[in-house]
């Protein structure tokens, strides 16, 4: 992008303007995604709990987030007496900065990235793991026991889950041979069986482990021990109100989109549709191809974020010892096995076998997903019950002989 701006501006200013434009676009993306993700979260939770969700503000309640935002801005910006005021005010910005900086290295298309780094995957891991700092500081600075417990839980949970998450990132990187996310995306060009997820059984399992660990490190339910309304009031958020509170949610949704982007970049073919056997940015021209790439990539991010919402509203919250045990007793050994396994697979398995396994994995998984999707349209149980009769209750039971019908 500095090359584009160099047509209009002299040397140092084209870089400055390019950086400012990239930062503005990323901020817009995070803000816009959060805006719609909060609405979607309410809608999803509503439908899962057999409610309607927001309906009043705008069509389908789409402007609910706007109403929430106005409410949050107009709330009093309040700090408790026992709080460390400087740290209390600083903490939300620290959390948001971490999740914002993670997007700097995330490509939305072929070379469609704010700053193309050679170590982009590593950089994203490093930056996203420092988001916990804002949460821990918020917990400490609030001067409240609930907040402190929330912060301590968050620190323990995130520091533990970072280890299997990082090891699961290394698994596709062993396949790719580079840390550059743009190169990793380019390697997965073409049909969907070229995606790293279907490369071998180890990357296939690594995707799921990575996704669960990423959910845990975004402190989403069922791992939201840091907030845990039923035990800790609201955890580290207890003393926050108004716009600072909303910065924490901006950070949370931002890091959800960042880890979803990282997952789709490493495992799910990045910006490739999976059904076009060429690079769209070359075939469809610069503008059209890049728009398609960005749309596909953002769509994949949204699908993973929706999956996180589905998990959040379906599963009960784990206990803190269960959370730690899941990480240290299961995910850590599994990810070590995956790492060794993917290295051995590259060394030992002959290429004919590897190709067959790739096809089996790719078509087996898409077939499974298709069956699950089609099962949505099956006839619901008891749809053939007569009107006014309870569906399924006495449907296929004979009336016992000793009961006489009136």
């Amino acid at each position, binding site marked *: 992008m500095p090359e584009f701006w160099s047509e209009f501006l002299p*040397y*140092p200013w084209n*870089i*400055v303007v390019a950086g400012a434009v990239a930062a503005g676009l990323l901020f817009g993306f995070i803000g816009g995604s959060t805006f719609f993700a909060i609405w979607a979260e309410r809608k999803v939770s509503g439908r899962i709990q057999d409610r309607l969700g927001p309906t009043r503000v705008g069509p389908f309640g789409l402007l609910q987030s706007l109403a929430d935002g106005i409410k949050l801005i107009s709330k009093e910006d309040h700090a408790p007496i026992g709080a*460390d005021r*400087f*740290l209390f005010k*600083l903490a939300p910005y*620290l959390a948001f900065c971490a999740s914002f900086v993670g997007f700097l290295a995330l490509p939305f298309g072929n070379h469609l990235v704010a700053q193309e*780094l*050679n*170590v982009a995957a*590593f*950089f994203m*891991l*490093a*930056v996203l*793991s*420092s988001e*916990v*700092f804002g949460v*821990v*500081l918020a*917990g*400490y*600075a609030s001067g409240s026991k609930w907040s*402190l417990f929330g*912060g*301590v839980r968050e*620190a*323990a949970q995130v*520091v533990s889950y*970072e280890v299997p998450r990082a090891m699961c990132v290394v698994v596709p990187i062993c396949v790719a041979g580079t840390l550059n996310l743009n190169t990793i995306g380019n390697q997965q060009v073409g049909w969907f069986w070229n995606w790293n997820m279907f490369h071998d059984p180890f990357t296939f399992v690594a995707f799921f482990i990575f996704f669960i660990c990423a959910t845990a490190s975004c402190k989403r339910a069922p791992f939201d021990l840091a907030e845990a309304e039923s035990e800790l009031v609201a955890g580290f958020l207890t003393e926050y109100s108004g716009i600072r509170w909303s910065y924490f949610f901006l950070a949370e949704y931002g890091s959800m989109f960042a880890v979803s982007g990282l997952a789709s970049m490493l495992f799910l073919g990045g910006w490739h549709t999976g059904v076009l056997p060429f690079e769209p940015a070359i075939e469809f021209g610069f503008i059209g191809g890049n728009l398609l790439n960005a749309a596909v990539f953002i769509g994949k991010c949204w699908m993973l974020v929706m999956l996180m919402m589905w998990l959040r509203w379906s599963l009960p919250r784990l206990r803190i010892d269960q959370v730690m045990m899941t990480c240290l007793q299961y995910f850590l050994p599994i990810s070590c096995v995956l790492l060794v396994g993917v290295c051995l697979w590259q060394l030992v398995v002959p290429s004919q076998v590897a190709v067959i396994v790739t096809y089996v994995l790719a078509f087996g998984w898409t077939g499974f997903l298709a069956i699950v999707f089609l099962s949505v349209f099956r006839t619901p149980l008891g749809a053939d019950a007569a009107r006014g009769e309870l569906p399924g209750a006495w449907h296929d039971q004979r009336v016992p002989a000793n009961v006489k019908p009136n």
Partner: protein
Amino acid sequence: MTLPIVLFAIVATITAISALGVVLARNVVRMAVWLLFTLVGVSLLYFLLGAEFAGTVQLIVYVGGTLILIVFGVMLTAQGPLRELRTRPAEWLVGGIVGALLFGLLVTASYQIALPPPSTDNTLPGPGPLGLTFLGVTETSPTANVSGLPDDVVVPRKPVAYLLPFEIVSVHLLVVLIGAAYLARAKRRVKA
């Protein structure tokens, strides 16, 4: 004033100010926050130099790991005398003298570093040669001078095995781990 110099000035100023903040703050957690800004500033300096990997390692090791553990420990243990640290005048004196000496030493040393010699082959060694060098078998670029020395000083290069120092460092870490486990163990009395 080019753009890199302006950026360096901004980042270096922020880093230096937050380093002063680490020294001057009294609350332990605030010190940790100032240390956060210092470490992030140092990693930004690495990024400005184009050393992306070093900058990222700085972020993940110090900011994401060490600093979190420091804050975690401080939050759990900071009570009474440890929460507010007051520095006595004698400590200011000793610390100031040591700091000034170190600064002077670093300044004189940095003025004596010559430019690295222009290397004839710019290709980076692959993992194979690097691993062999690590074992002391071969040398990656035997003709080149040792980088960072003046031109007239010629150090004869010999194949050096880095495996032994590496193993010693690992064993040192193991000793630290065992020591930590020993200190943290449950103290039970043996029944007589």
